């Protein structure tokens, strides 16, 4: 696009963001403040992820953007178009073909490789925010690794409900040191972060924070020995591809209680159906 630099941001700003990313990689799970810029998309709509992607994107990269696991949700379309327009990079919907994947609220079902980078859009990077609103306070709690408050919250859940009642944005310990928000991914996705071969970067534009999980780093959901972390998933197979291992969206089909469950990861679902179709034809 004429009048703008490659991937929208000027090189000075990109350098500033890359420095923040490097620091974040060096201290896994630690939130690094950065001078987030106003983007032509609204705060809360992925400006942090967009800035991180803009800073790491090269001309040969292949970009995939998902929202709720799907490539065709309107905001994913809008962000993908933004980079197609400002950087002219190739885009894809195939998880395996992408070098950079920007995501909101999901981790793809297909395991990621070491030559891929996963960029998360983060609304509230502070995992302690719901327990302590002051960022001056939470910063100190992180510095002292003082996470008792969160353990108490989990304990109270168990005392009240018999189990931990956090279903998304499940707090995790990174590298055994920092408590981190995995962004509002479902708790179902949390285990995929553990020792993932791909670099995981997190951008929070409005809150002006970047953090990272380097490849093959330990990411453990907080839990107790007698109340271990449990996956939450609708107990059904996908109605389209039959998968029993994928995260499902619940879709209402009528106003009389009719519903069906389908893969939230559209690429995973389509690939499985393609394979099944090919096998059917071959048979």
């Amino acid at each position, binding site marked *: 696009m004429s009048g703008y630099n490659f991937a929208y941001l000027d090189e000075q700003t990109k350098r500033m963001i890359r420095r923040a990313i490097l620091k974040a990689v060096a201290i896994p799970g630690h939130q690094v403040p950065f001078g987030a810029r*106003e983007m032509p998309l*609204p705060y809360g709509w992925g400006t942090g992820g967009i800035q991180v992607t803009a800073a790491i994107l090269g001309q040969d990269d292949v970009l995939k953007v998902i929202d*709720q696991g799907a490539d065709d949700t309107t905001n994913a379309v809008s962000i993908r*178009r933004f980079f197609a327009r400002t950087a002219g990079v190739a885009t894809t919907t195939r998880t395996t073909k992408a070098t950079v994947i920007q995501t909101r609220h999901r981790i793809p079902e297909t395991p990621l490789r070491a030559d891929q980078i996963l960029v998360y859009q983060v609304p509230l990077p502070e995992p302690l925010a719901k327990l302590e609103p002051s960022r001056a306070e939470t910063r100190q709690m992180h510095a002292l690794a003082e996470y008792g408050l969160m353990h108490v919250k989990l304990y109270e859940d168990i005392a009240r409900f018999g189990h931990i009642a956090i279903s998304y944005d499940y707090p995790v310990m990174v590298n055994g040191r920092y408590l981190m928000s995995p962004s509002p991914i479902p708790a179902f996705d949390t285990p995929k972060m553990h020792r993932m071969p791909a670099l995981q970067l997190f951008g929070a534009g409005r809150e002006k924070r970047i953090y990272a999980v380097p490849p093959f780093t330990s990411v453990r959901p907080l839990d107790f020995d007698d109340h271990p972390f449990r996956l939450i998933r609708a107990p059904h197979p996908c109605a389209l591809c039959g998968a029993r291992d994928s995260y*499902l*969206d619940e*879709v209402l*089909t009528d106003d009389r209680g009719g519903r069906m469950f389908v893969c939230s990861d559209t690429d995973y679902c389509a690939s499985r159906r393609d394979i099944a179709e090919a096998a059917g034809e071959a048979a």
Partner: protein
Amino acid sequence: MAYVAVKGGERAIDAAHDWLARERRGDPAIPALGIRQVEEQLGRAVDRVMAEGSCHDTGLAALAIKQAQGDLIEAAFLLRAYRTTLPRFASSLPVETAAMVIRRRISAIYKDLPGGQVLGPTYDYTHRLLDFSLAAERLDETEMRPPARPTDTGRRAMPRVMDLLDREGLMGAEQPGDAAPADLTREPLSFPAGRDVRLQALARGDEGFLLALGYSTQRGYGNTHPFVGEIRVGAVAVEIVPPELGFAIEIGRIDLTECEMVNQFGGSKTEPAQFTRGYGLCFGHAERKAMGMALVDRSMRASEFGEDVTAPAQDIEFVLSHSDNIEATGFVEHLKLPHYVDFQSELETIRRMRRTAGEDAAPEGEAP
């Protein structure tokens, strides 16, 4: 009904943009609004967009207002997103508001003072009656009238009221700082935030937010006993020192509204009783905003003067984290984006909780 995978987001977006463009234009039989018309006749809207968009350019602000169908927060967002791409070629010297070319200047604490009271163009004493003559699509009466403005007002010497109080030693001394002021458009906000950062955040802050917070201090949530020491509105020169010249040159003029509130301070063991200052400054003619800002600025100085921090307006982190309407509107409105993944896991969790509750409630011996 069969399930149809949601496709065609791309086509939907294009169609929505197209619809929006037609709606923005309105009835094509009505002449399109000119940018110059907005600039000249909707000046207060232009001023608000410049202040909250933190970019002084009446033409661009007017364009943003037209493009946003008069949605001023949307317009400020357009201006912000544009300003962030502009290169910075210099930092200006501090502007001298004592040398302002005055259009309006009032003080509520002195009946008369050097330079006098200048009422200027104000709605303050208008009767709020709809003027149906403006609805008639012919030349306004006002267009015929000769200008009412006395020609010498702007040139008269008008020392700042605060400086007069200062001379008597009644005004708490401000800490002069040599360091370059912080810039939260380049460096992220961190706490505790200095007064320079606070004032910058308030100057870009939402008018409604500052109005409400300032109002809350008057109603007892952190009272500061304020008086309007002075409000002045007018044009000031902006100067820079280009490194190749080594001396200051004027690069233009901007319109500003400045408000200085005088607030009580009872004194302490070490300091005598004196007045303290709340400061408001913003682009254009925006007295409501400047006054709200001055009230909130003084409230946030509570701990500086050894006052208890109990009210929202005194809580620096609370005020600064929520004053920016571009951030606020983005995050509030992002709730429109799909959240069905998270909602689905909430559904599963709540179903499980209800099952467990049902088991607990079931009488002993019965199958759950």
